């Protein structure tokens, strides 16, 4: 008891010092665990509001590891102490009373009855203090993301009492993005002041930023109330707000265009991935492969199976899945070619029917093996998150990766077709089968390989699709029509045309969406393709010369 009394005197002295200097002072260093325990236990005995305020400031400025946790718990009303042995605990409501955890040791103390603990009470004054202290604590955190989040929170709930904390944080902030947010937060506070100059200054400081909260505040100033008067009484402030708002909006507009283009390109990449395999089987070989969608489905299911096989390495399973899906779909493709399509060359409409039959069989096979329900494939951690460039523009990693991935697949395919011996044979067979045959190329095997290649690439597309949609037996059907559109639009037998068609359709779709909605945008694109085919019946980049003839 005596020791505690001495410490309490110390606390009061120190806090007197703080109240003179403002909240922030040099850190209070607690050297032993016993000291920490003593300081925390003061929370139980402190009874007056001023004592508690001092104590809170002291804890905040200490080097206690659990300071944020304690203060947060205090604010949320989850800080209690046990009546029997006066232990400070975090308490979470539980059907039988409270689930408590020791604050000092972090030890789980089990469930305790309602009457055996007492809450450490706080009032509104303390809540305000706690908010400021906690905001400052997060602003001083070592983690940039946490500092940024704290600054954003301040933007959303600007209050005069945070201003000193914001100014102090600005002085030491190293990250440019956090600094920008802090500037906006400070300006938001100043906007609420009653001095015109401060407010004008605050509005001016929004110029050049793209913060959406700032924009909505400025827009709010332009509104009129029900009597027809502006809610913002000060004309000068309102007009300068309008000027800054216009500038911010036009800048945001540019970023919106960039973002739409990015979305469009990522949608285009999905189209490209799904269509490029078809560009081989349909475009190069002239086989209408209705089972193309099912090849993608097989790829997606391969991803699922690989993930089941290596549950501890989810982050890497997708890397393994890419070659696996290529092999699975490719082999199935070769079997289909050898078994069925080989007998139907030159009869494109018959292959359509036969491969449609194959697609039904594959769908039902998957349904019987894996159940008709959708399977979820979890995304590896490195695919989530986004690259935030500024307030108006952030690019999600999964979209970014899919653009890169589709380009890599396309380039590898072009390389394979143009620079390797197998590719040379494939081109030879498609250009003149009889001549290639007489030159000693085994056309049968080249056909099988080409079809396997197209199918394998569809399998790779399936890996990508497993990250975007549900993996189910009908996965392929939803993409098959789009894939055909892309190939036909681009010009059959032309990989560059496929690339160009996929990207332009993707971008067009995304730019139409804000005006027309997703469904109508898609309808417009379909109608456009139907009309386009009338104008150029052989697609955008039609093949010329003899191979064109039917």
């Amino acid at each position: 008891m005596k020791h505690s009394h001495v410490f309490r005197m110390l606390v009061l002295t120190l806090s007197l010092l703080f109240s003179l200097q403002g909240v922030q002072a040099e850190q209070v260093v607690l050297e032993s665990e016993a000291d920490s325990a003593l300081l925390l236990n003061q929370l139980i005995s402190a009874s007056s509001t001023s004592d508690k305020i001092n104590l809170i400031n002291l804890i905040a400025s200490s080097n206690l590891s659990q300071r944020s946790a304690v203060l947060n718990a205090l604010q949320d009303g989850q800080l209690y102490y046990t009546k029997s042995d006066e232990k400070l605990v975090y308490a979470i409501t539980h059907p039988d009373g409270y689930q408590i955890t020791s604050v000092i040791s972090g030890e789980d103390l089990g469930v305790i009855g309602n009457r055996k603990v007492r809450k450490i009470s706080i009032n509104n004054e303390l809540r305000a203090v706690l908010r400021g202290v906690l905001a400052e604590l997060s602003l001083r955190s070592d983690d940039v993301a946490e500092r940024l989040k704290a600054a954003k929170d301040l933007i959303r709930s600007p209050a005069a009492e945070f201003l000193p904390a914001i100014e102090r944080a600005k002085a030491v902030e190293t990250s440019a993005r956090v600094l920008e947010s802090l500037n906006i937060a400070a300006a938001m506070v100043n906007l609420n002041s009653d001095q015109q100059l401060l407010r004008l200054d605050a509005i001016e400081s929004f110029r050049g930023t793209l913060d959406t909260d700032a924009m909505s505040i400025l827009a709010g100033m332009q509104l009129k109330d029900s009597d027809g008067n502006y809610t913002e009484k000060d004309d000068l402030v309102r007009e300068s707000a309008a000027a800054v708002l216009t500038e911010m909006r036009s800048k945001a507009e540019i970023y919106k265009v960039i973002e739409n283009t990015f979305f469009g390109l990522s949608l285009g990449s999905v189209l490209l991935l799904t269509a490029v395999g078809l560009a081989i089987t349909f475009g190069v070989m002239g086989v209408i492969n209705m089972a193309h969608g099912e090849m993608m489905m097989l790829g997606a299911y391969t991803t699922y199976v690989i993930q089941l096989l290596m549950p501890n390495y989810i982050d890497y399973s997708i890397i393994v899945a890419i070659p696996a899906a290529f092999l699975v779909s490719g082999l199935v493709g070769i079997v289909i070619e050898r078994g069925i399509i080989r007998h139907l060359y030159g009869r494109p409409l018959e292959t359509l029917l036969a491969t449609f039959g194959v697609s039904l069989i594959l769908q039902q096979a998957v349904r019987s093996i894996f159940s008709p329900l959708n399977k979820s494939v979890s995304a590896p951690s490195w695919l989530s998150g986004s690259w935030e460039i500024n307030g108006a523009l952030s690019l999600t990693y999964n979209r970014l990766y899919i653009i890169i991935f589709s380009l890599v697949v396309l380039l590898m395919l072009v390389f394979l077709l143009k620079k390797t011996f197998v590719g040379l044979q494939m081109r030879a067979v498609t250009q003149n089968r009889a001549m290639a045959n007489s030159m000693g190329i085994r056309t049968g095997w080249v056909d099988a390989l080409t079809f396997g290649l197209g199918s394998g690439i569809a399998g790779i597309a399936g890996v990508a699709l497993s990250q975007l949609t549900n993996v189910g037996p009908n996965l392929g059907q939803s993409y098959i029509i789009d894939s055909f559109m892309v190939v036909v639009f681009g010009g059959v037998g032309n990989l560059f045309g496929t690339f160009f068609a996929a990207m332009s359709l993707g971008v067009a779709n995304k730019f139409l969406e804000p005006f027309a909605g997703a469904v109508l945008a898609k309808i417009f694109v379909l109608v456009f393709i139907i009309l386009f085919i009338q104008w150029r019946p052989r697609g955008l980049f039609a093949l010329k010369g003899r191979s064109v003839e039917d």
Partner: protein
Amino acid sequence: MINTKIFEHSAIGRLLLADKAGRYLIAVLLAAMVLVPLCNLIMPEGSFLYVPTYVVVLLGKYLCYALLALALDLIWGYCGILSLGHGAFFALGGYAMGMHLMRQIGERGVYGNAELPDFMVFLNWTELPWYWYGFDNFFFSMFMVALVPAVLAFVFGWLAFRSRVTGVYLSIITQAMTYALLLAFFRNDMGFGGNNGLTDFKDILGFSLQSDVTRCVLFALSALSVVLAYVLCRAIVSSKYGRVLVAIRDAESRTRFMGYRVEHFKLFVFVVSAILAGIAGALYVPQVGIINPGEFGPINSIEIVIWVAIGGRGTLFGAVIGAVAVNYAKTYFTGAFPEVWLFMLGTLFVISTLYLPKGIVGVVTQMRERRAERNATSTPEQGAES
């Protein structure tokens, strides 16, 4: 012998004289048209000859599909136009009929609004969209059943055939057409009931759709329509005009070089086919009691192609047989072994394209020819022995 003489007196008769299979088909259809309703209405329940109402409805549905298959066989089998979007014309005819039936509900809807169908009340619409005007009139609606698919087919065909979009490309843009319509009809703003489509029909021309008599009449009408459509298609393909169609199918450029306006021939037959498909849809809707955007699904259109291919392309009666046979198999297997059905159907397509390029009809003819050959070879031998 008497039969033959009667046939010779009319143009249709002469047509059928050369078409033995067609005569059998028409006879079977006409017999069904009379017997099935009789067995349903007159025979007592539980009797050996009694045909339950659900069978009548099922058979009626098959006949609508048969009509649709006939429409497709006309353009695919005889003109080489493989439409993967024929379901769209079927669905449009169905929607025109559905709109009429919706207007007939009147005040008996859930919301009791005399003017607006339930889904419009639900969407807080206050007045009927302009394109719903007139559909309370039966004859106007029947006119639209034919006109809407015809106009779509005309515009689409005019654009496509004029720019010489052929083969695979045509197939794919017809698929795009039906897919675009599918998406469009899914939208609530379109005013066609969105996802749920049009349903809860009560009666047609004052007759309750639930009564056995109405169902039997609809069945008989479906059978009659198939007969009439068959005769019409047979007349088209047997005429001189039909010969040009076949020429276009087999060598389009050559036909063009001979001075025929290929696109006009194609356009005409395409529009006729679309109208037939629309009529099939209009007969289908009152019998199944619902029309929704799912009918526009590209898969449905591919299924039509399958019926024709399995029955036997380019024979007309093959299309009817294929539609009924495949759909009967579908009903049976989805009921008895739902797991196996898609395996079955898939294998059927593969086998029929690989080994039976002429479908069921082709197999029958082949068997008959073989028998005739055997007879032809065996007779002289017998003669030599004796």
